[in-house]
Each structure stands twice: as structure tokens, then as C-alpha cells.
């Protein structure tokens, strides 16, 4: 298990969970992030900000939230 903030470009990951308030958890769920969902890292340098592809849409995640998302390798 790692943090999404550490992911590098091209990595394919599986979403496990997100720590944080109900609001942000719900928002990510609404955008397609449910446990077991595939995440493809489109752009990430391993230092925080990432852009990912979830269910075919491109989503940008800031440092703070990427750090709270737990993932594992697909």
C-alpha cells in the first residue's frame, strides 16, 4: 500500500481508501473513485500533485488530497 502522492507517470493502481472529511470522500466517490477502482497515473513526479485517469475522465489532484489516498499496485 502506498500513497497516490508518491505515484509516478504511467503507474496503474487500485484505489483502496481515502482519509479525510465526509465531504471530500463523497466528492471522490461521485467522480468515480470506489474501492477496487483502477487508477491510471497520467502525470506524477512522486512529489505530490498528480493527474489521473478514473473511469475515462482526467482528474487533477492537489498535493494535500493525493497524500490522503491509499492505493496499491494493480
Amino acid at each position, binding site marked *: 500500500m502506498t500513497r497516490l502522492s508518491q505515484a509516478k507517470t504511467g503507474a496503474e493502481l487500485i484505489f483502496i481508501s481515502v482519509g479525510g472529511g465526509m465531504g471530500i470522500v463523497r466528492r471522490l466517490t461521485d467522480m468515480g473513485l470506489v474501492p477496487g477502482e483502477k487508477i491510471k497515473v497520467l502525470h506524477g513526479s512522486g512529489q505530490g500533485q498528480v493527474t489521473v485517469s478514473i473511469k475515462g*475522465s482526467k482528474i487533477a489532484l*492537489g498535493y494535500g488530497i493525493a497524500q490522503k489516498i491509499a492505493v496499491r499496485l494493480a
Partner: protein
Amino acid sequence: MNKNKKITVALAGNPNCGKSTIFNNLTGSRQHVGNYPGVTVEKKEGIVRYQDYEINVVDLPGTYSLSAYSEDEIVARNFILEDKPDVVIHVIDSSNLERNLYLFTQLNELDVPIVLAMNMSDIVKKKGHVINYDELSILLGKPIVSMTGSENKGTDQLLEAVAGVCDRKIKIEQVYIDYGQEIDEQLCALKEIISKDEKLLSRYPLQWLSVKLLENDFAIIDEVKKFSVGQEILDCLEKGQGHIRQHFSDDPEVLIADRRYGFISGACTQAMKLGAEERHDISDRIDKVILNRVLGLPIFAVVMYSIFKFTFTFSEPVVKFFETFFEWTGTLVSSFVPEGLIQSFLVDGVIGGVGGVLGFFPLVLFMFFAIAFFEDSGYMARAAFVMDKFMSKFGLHGKSFLPMMIATNGCAVPGIMATRTLESKRDRLITMMVTPFMICGAKLPIFALFIGAFFPVKQGANIMFLMYILSVAIAFVSAWVLKRFVFKGETAHFVMELPPYRVPTIKGLLLKMWERGWLYLKKAGSVVFLISIIIWAGFTFPESKADPNIDFKASRTSQMEQSFAGRLGKFVEPAIQPIGMDWRSGVALIAGVAAKEVVVSTFGTIYSLGEVDVDHPDSLKTALQKDPAWNPLKAISFLMFCLIYLPCVVAMSVFYRESGSSAKWTLFLIFWTTTMAWIFSFVVYQVGQILGFGGIG
């Protein structure tokens, strides 16, 4: 059939699904922008006639879901629940079907007739996907219209489907999602209790209500508490949620979301054939460059520069034309109306005041056009992301930059309105507080006048550029201070969908430009007009008695000093003397609260009234240069003050409304900006004097 049956149709859909394009296609320019009652969420409406229907189309805010965590989502669902539109058109980005249908699973449970507008069918084709619309329509139980909004394809078919549903020619079936046995049992238990209360039953659709309750939707739970069966429902809910948690070791809301996506995935597998494995599309390739860690910021700077360059280059002839037009009107009126109070009123008060605002209108429009271009093309979402890391250090959000951008050379009023895209109230307030610091289109003429008068042309451009930098720096420092001492807490997380890059449509750009431009223009029609008249009267009354013992020049000056405006200026003089200003600057600054460009026209009034030879008035620039009371240091100090001090009346009133009618924050804004302005000017003036920049006077 009777003529003109009036119906209401609501447009729902995700952000970036092309909803506003379809809204524009449906309604053309017959649009009306207002607010949903009690909240600061924009409500766009438009009328379209089709067959014998007069359809009122309401554009709901773009949302991913209908939960209670954002104002937009609450507004969207309350509109459907309370206003009960005859049809809801759910606009779907067909190239991103799974995610878009998530909203459908919730709309569907609201028990309203839904027509699915499957937009962007051209992109689906390009990607090589094949959607079996008939099959999907059966699976979801709703009529489907395939569309390409950007080419205005499918609009008629969509209207036909809406009319068909209203005529009951097209059947709609209710297909509920199967949440699985465990969850269903809990839903059934809830439904049984809900059914006991007629009032509750008639207020909400049964399936939707029970699912929302089980999902822990706090807004709905609060509502239900008000009903007679409230307590019973809460007890049942606690038991049911506990049971589910024990059984699945997961929260009910996660399981429900999972089931919804399961239902969607099932429908998609059956009705859609995916094209070959997605290659890197053009958007990805562009993003590799634009979001690059090294290149991202320089590209951002280039884009900002090109927006300014575009604005100034193309608006210049139009601005000149407007200026000439108003001068010409003034001369024309002077030649018809005899000299005296009425002429002065018409020329100085009315034409001068309104012309001042309208003169900069083209510049503002060009600016908004350029911004709309980068918004609609998809760049602004990236820019927000690129800026987020930097901006969050100062307590701002990545999305804060757009409001500030709109205010720079544009207008703080639409800028403050644009803070609506910020979800957290704290981020919004901070952004609203610092947006007025930007050099807006109305402050520009003040800078142009003073820099032009006191600095050589070559230096002038540099000083102007420095002022821009300074305005941004002050905004950031101010945001940091606010974050540190006033609005404590964390900046909201940055989560934003990056839409694919698109070529904007001219129609969309023009509509967006006009919407923001209109906010600016309204000033000329109302506040500024009124205030220019008040200012004119302030200088004209009370009229001083002609004293035969003093000459013309002296009598003019004494008129200025005796007028209401002059007395007000004298009153504030002691407060502004330490920053190098006299009573005349005081008057101009007070008048500038009406609208910043009024500062210039007030100086115009002061100097032309005070001048000896009224037939050959020196240009204002020369008048300022000749006046021994001014020097470059004082000019800079004055400009600093203009840059920072309180926003104009219109901006303040919009701030008041957008802050949730908070008198407290509005007063804070006034205090905050003016204090900052005084401190900055004081430091600049006093230090400048010590360093010997002041010269004499």
C-alpha cells in the same frame, strides 16, 4: 389542443458535459440570468417554443451527484423536488458514459420524467466506441437522443422527445437499481415507516428518500426529523446501518455507490462496444507540456501576457472611438444648450460620468472574450492546477486565480461573482477579499494619468508593470495575513476534472463575454450615473456669492473650497496629509468610491473649475504637472493608495451579497483595504522623503 402549453424543463448534467452549449442551442440569446432564492448559485433560464409548447428551460448547476455536500447539488435536487419540472433533460458526455451515468442513478430515483441527451457523439465515433442507443434506452427505461452540441446537431430531436414525453406518446419506465438483498431489506423497513406519514410520503419520492437516508445524507436526515415519524426513522436507520456495517464491514454509502456503479457498468457492457485500447490522445500530449513541472509556470505567464496583449491591442481603436464619441456629444450639447447650470449638468455630470464608464467598456469586453477563450478551450482548469501549489501557500486555492484574472484590467464585480466556483466558504471569502486589489479597467486611467504626468514615457511602462506586480503581491500577502490571523483553517483540497481540450465556439464565447460585460455595464446605467450627478452637485453647490473685490481665478478657487465636496475634502485632509495628499486628492478619492474612473473625472472638474482661462483649458496632465503641490513621490503615494483602498460601491455591494449578506465581512473589507492603503502609502511617502525623492513641496 389548446395553444401554447407552458412547461418547465430542467437541464441536469456533470460539469464539462456540454450542458451550457446545449442550453445555448435550445434558447439562443433569449436567456435570463438570476439567482436561486437564498443562495449565491446562478440560475440561467431561457424560453424556447416548439410545436404548441412554450418551454421554460432551466439550466441546473453542473454536478457529479445529488448529495448534500455542495450548495450546487442541493440547489439542483431541491429544484427538481420542489418545482417539479415537467421533464428533466439529463445531458451526458457519451464519451465518458460510466461516470456521467452516476448522476442518472440518482436523478432516476427522483421519479421525474427524464430524457437522456447523449452529447458529444462525434467524440464517441472518433474514439471508435459504438453505443447501441435502443438497447441502452430499454435498460435505463428512458428515451435517448444522440447529439453533438458543438455542431448544434440533435437539438430538434431533443425537443421532439421532450414534447413526446409531455404528450405521453413516448413511454417512460421506472427501472430501479437493485441494491442487493441486505440493503434492500433495510430500504424496505424504512419505506414501511415512511409510508405511515402521509405528509412525508407526498413530499419526497419513496425510493429516493429511503436510499438517501441510508446513505447518511445529513440534509435529508435533518428534514425528516421534523416529521412525526422522525424518531422512528432515526432508530430504524441506526439499526439498519449498524447491521450493514457488520455484514459488509463497510459504510452503507460506499456500498450504495458501489452498487450504482455496478448497475451502470452492467448497462454499459451490454449496450456499448469500446473501441481499440485508448491511445494517448491529443489532450494527454498537450498536458504533458502544459502541466510539466518546469514548463507549467512559464506557459502560464505567456498565456496571461497574451491575454493582456490581445486586450490592449484590439481594444485601443474602439476605446479611442468611444472617447471621441463622448467628447463630440459633449461639444454638441454645449453648442445647443446655453451656458449655465443646465449645460454644466448635462456635459460634466451626465455625459462625463457615463462616458467615463462606457469609455472602458470595449477594453473590458475584449478582456472577457480572451479569458472566455482560455476557459472554454480547457486551459483555465489546467492553469488552476498549475497555480494551486503556489497559491495554497498563501491560503488561496488554485481556482482563486480566475477571479483575480477577471478583475485585472477587467472588473472586480464579475471577478467576485466568479469566486462561486470555489467550494469552501473560507477560500471564497479570502479570494473575494483580495480580488478588488487587482488593477481593474477603471483604475487604469488613474495610473495612465499620473504616470503620464510625472514620469517620462520610457519609465512609464516600467512603473505601470511594477504596479501590476505590486497589486498581485499585495493580494497574496493580504491573503496570507488573512489566512494566518482571520480565516484560520485549511485550504480546501484541490480536486478538479480536466476536460479535454476543445476549440471554443464563437457563440459560447460571445455569450460568456456578454454575461460578464453586462455586470460591468450595469454600473453605468445605475450607480455611476447617479453618483456622477451627486459629485457634480457637490462641486457646484452651495454657490459662492460673487465678490467684486477678488478676481475670476480666486472666485473659482473659493467656489471649489466652499462647495460641499471641497468641505468634505478639507475635513479628511488631516488624515491624508501624512501620505502626501491635500484636500483635492481627498475629494477625488472619496468620489472614486463611486467608481474608480471617477477619480480622474473629479480631478478634471477640480482643475478645469480652478483654471483661469476656461476657453483654453490645459489638458489635465499638464495641469497636474504645473501644479506645484504635486511631485513624482506624491504621485506614487497617491497611486499606491488608489491601488489598495476600498473597492467601488458596486464591488462592495456585490461583495456584501456574495458573502451571504454579511455586514461584518463587508465592514471588515472596508477597514482592511483602507488601512492597508494608508500604511503602504505612508511608508512609501515617508521613506521616499527621507531618501530625498520628494524634492520641494
